[in-house]
């Protein structure tokens, strides 16, 4: 079974991302959306955690949510792929299940 995890909370405000990472199986996909996109940006206090996640999972971030919050794709940690809404749909199709961490 392949799993896509979505995380929509800021890592500074909730432990949603930490909890997701604690439960996500190695090799599963993680998509950061809404306020979850702040975790994808370089230079934050959560960068090491997220770099660790990138080594173990396929990590994606939703571009429109990133741009809305004034962040650019160039600021995203290496190894994280920026996807648009079409890419979001593709990801849900490519995986057997979606688990939303809210």
């Amino acid at each position, binding site marked *: 079974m392949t799993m896509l995890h979505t995380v929509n909370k800021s890592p500074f405000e909730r432990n949603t991302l930490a909890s997701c990472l604690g439960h996500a199986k190695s090799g599963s996909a993680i998509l950061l959306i809404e306020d979850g996109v*702040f975790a994808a940006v*370089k230079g934050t206090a959560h960068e090491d955690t997220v770099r660790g996640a990138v080594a173990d999972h396929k990590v994606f971030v939703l571009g*429109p949510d990133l*741009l809305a*919050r*004034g962040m650019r794709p160039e600021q995203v940690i290496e190894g994280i792929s920026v996807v648009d809404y079409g890419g979001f749909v593709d990801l849900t199709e490519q995986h057997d299940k979606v688990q939303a961490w809210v």
Partner: protein
Amino acid sequence: MSEPWEEEGPGTIKKFMYVNRKAPYGTIYALESLEVVLIAAAFEQDVSMAFLDDGVYQLKKGQDTQGIGMKNFSPTYRALEGYDVEKLYVEAESLAERGLSEDDLLVPVEVMGREALAELMDEQDVILSF
């Protein structure tokens, strides 16, 4: 005829601080706070806004909401000066944790440390939390 808030004269001006701790768009708090500040500005009180924790993201330059179909209300922070809301405080620690600096912000602000901000909060008559 005097308005109710004028009855006691200018001696009754109170210090109001709006404390903003949430990122924009993910929740409605940031926009609600901004609207309340704009409305309350008519009452000629001593108004300030503090931005800490994820609230500092509200002031991030370069927001572009076309892709998410929501209104980009960040330009409205630049209108605050015209409403005589000139005291915008941003917590230095919150910026640093997020890899942000004063240059990333779209309005002139006063960046201050957590301790100084705590002092400032202590001096307020009314704190409104968003």
